[in-house]
């Protein structure tokens, strides 16, 4: 099993969810976060004082998938989240050694 972590633009969340749903993947966990990277933050002004905000609001999406589905899922996210502009985000994947569904106690692929 693999955990895929995708940092995406907040307004792409809908499309990414739809793309994953196409693959039958509905389980995921989303966390609001702040991204630092190539994409510039914005500037706010309070009484004339410029304020460069360094981060860009992002959503960190965590999706645990079966190993055999992982490439498919990564590709789907990549396509759905892409605008072609800087700041589209990144996908990270790492192996998970155990997954448990709390409700039933099932473990492994069953639990995803």
């Amino acid at each position: 099993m693999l955990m895929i972590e995708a940092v995406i633009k907040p307004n792409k969340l809908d499309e990414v969810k739809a793309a994953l749903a196409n693959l039958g993947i509905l389980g995921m966990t989303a966390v609001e976060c702040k991204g630092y990277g190539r994409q510039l933050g914005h500037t706010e002004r309070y009484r004339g004082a410029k304020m460069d905000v360094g981060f860009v609001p992002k959503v960190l999406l965590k999706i645990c998938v079966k190993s055999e589905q992982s490439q498919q899922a990564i590709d789907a996210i990549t396509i759905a989240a892409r605008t072609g502009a800087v700041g589209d985000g990144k996908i990270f994947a790492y192996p998970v050694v155990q997954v448990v569904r709390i409700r039933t106690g099932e473990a492994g692929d069953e639990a995803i």
Partner: protein
Amino acid sequence: MLSASRSRSWALYLLLGAVVLGTSSASAQAAGLTPVELKEPSAINTGDTAWMLMSSALVLLMTGPALALFYGGLVRRKNVLATMMQSFILMAIVSVVWAVIGYSLAFDVGTPFIGGVRFAFLREVGFGPCEYAPTIPHTTWMVFQLMFAIITPALICGAYAERMKFSAMVLFSTLWLVVVYCPMAHMVWGKGGLLNAFLPGPGVNSPALDFAGGTVVHISSGVSALVCALVLGKRAGFGRVAMPPHSVVLSFIGAALLWVGWFGFNGGSALAANGLASSAFVTTHFAAAAATLGWVVMEWVKTGKPTVLGAISGAVAGLVVITPASGFTTPMYGMLMGFIGGALCMLAATSLKSKFGYDDSLDAFGVHGVGGTLGAILTGVFAVAAINGKPGLVDGNPNQVIPQLIAVGITWAIAIVGSLILLKIVDAVIGLRVIEADEMEGLDLTQHGEAGYHMEESDSTLAWSPKERAAAYGPGGDEPAVGAARLSQP
């Protein structure tokens, strides 16, 4: 004759009194009471009217948004809307009931305990003044009193916050208005009321001083709040999980607006823009100021830190304590009363609850019950004849304390008995509390289907479509695998 009508009234009362009142007006006249006199519109004074209209607006401001914010900030995020809604729906319901029958029950003459039905549906409530307030339109007097009738049941909300069903709260408050508030208002302020010090009836009278509603508003609501807290029981998790106010900022706005609005509450109770109104205004202000210090100093000494919630609670406590006395005592005595009130309510709110183990969630009893009782008694102590013709203990009249104690006793009794009966009835009819799962999820979602805040950056909050769900999990895939109940209301 009178005592007959009185005992009849008591009987009515125990039968929840709201129904058969058609004859009380007639019986009152039989008892020798002249009906409330109505006057010509020409008697109207524009300055007094301007002040009383503004005071009415200020007293409405006290319920919405002030009290709604004060209470709304103190609850957890998941209950903020439900708590504010309680104040708002009372602005609506009490108004309608007041026009239909409430005003008449409170201010028509009748028995010493409750008024008649002459003013039902606002009949005869017109442009000209009435005996209660001879220089302003009758409608102005009626709407000023209505604003008091709105805030009183709204104060009780603090006791049952975060766990009472909305429907139960609506039913309870409506009944409470008719069964507890209207009789109390009649006794203290209605012509011929049992405790009325200015327009007493010809029979038994125990003239208590209550300028702006220490008994009628604060004791009655505060004591009823205690009953509610006891009957409903504690919030789920009370004492085990932390329940910090979700926004002391909101409560702060509410408290500051309460302070400002209270100028209309107490200053307006002079019913004219005169020296007495000004005196009541000033006395009210100093009491609030001193009470703020009273509470803050106490907690600074006891816990090492002066808190913001303490400061605003102190101000409210001071305003409660001075309410009955504001038009009878001097600003300097008012300051003293405020300081005592702030310090004492601090002790009440911080130690009574934990000592007796009830969950008066937002301290409606600790502030309004304790502060109201204290204020009613101290009014008998600090009244000064130079202000409003009524001397108290410090002005050489120790006797005034007696009718004050009687008024306190009667108010406690009515509030306890009335609330207890009404709660039992409402519990039997529709149930008082939400189910525990709903309480955990919060009243905003379960009672009103709304959330107080949506602070997410992302617009994506849409749910999976049933089709998508079915494809992934198979049909019925969202049913609980082990048959447990879904955490949501039926």
